[in-house]
């Protein structure tokens, strides 16, 4: 049973435009959500996070939105740059020391 779902395996966006990556979850007890970025043959790196008590968190070109009623979060990247081309993983946490639950990832390609 997949608790964190990224239904779009890939996304292609033109440079300078907005990239929107989506993530849905099923467990309403998740209290923290994170986005990771992964380049080929490297480990994922932390990008941005949001607590379940907030609905938006912004860091430079990256903004994460959380809609708890819809159990949906999205990552907005604007403007998109070629260096943003990577696989993006959505992750969620239940409580304290429980392991993060990851989605399957979305491969973003930013075309120059």
């Amino acid at each position, binding site marked *: 049973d997949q608790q964190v779902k*990224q239904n779009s*395996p890939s996304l292609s966006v033109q440079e300078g435009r907005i990239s929107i990556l989506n993530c849905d979850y099923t467990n309403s007890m998740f209290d*923290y959500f*994170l986005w*990771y970025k992964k380049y080929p*043959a*490297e*480990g*994922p*790196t*932390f990008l941005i*996070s949001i*607590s379940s008590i907030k609905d938006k968190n912004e860091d430079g070109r990256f903004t994460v939105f959380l809609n708890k009623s819809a159990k949906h979060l999205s990552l907005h990247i604007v403007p998109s740059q070629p260096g943003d081309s990577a696989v993006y*993983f959505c*992750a969620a*946490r239940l409580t*304290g*020391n429980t*392991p*993060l*639950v*990851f*989605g*399957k*990832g979305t491969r973003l390609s930013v075309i120059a």
Partner: protein
Amino acid sequence: SQTIHQWPATLVQPVGSPLSLECTVEGTSNPNLYWYRQAAGRGLQLLFYSVGIGQISSEVPQNLSASRPQDRQFILSSKKLLLSDSGFYLCAWSGGGVGYGYTFGSGTRLTVV
């Protein structure tokens, strides 16, 4: 500062051979440690996690095992590899609290032939 080391970077092993992947963390004590595998089309699958020396939780039944002989050392092993064990293996650590979540190692690309 904290760093995580994972090796080897790539590994080609025949079916039925043993496996040992090692991960060490520096600059922190009593970290939570994790082994993940990224297989094609399956995202990041949690294999094992450990909250202390000798404490291992297994998430996926398979022919892999994990051990934590020291506070900052986490080892992934197999006695006999299967073709299906091929994938990209990632070690990660966390301090156990909120914030940046996990810090991942650079990964090991394992190909079982």
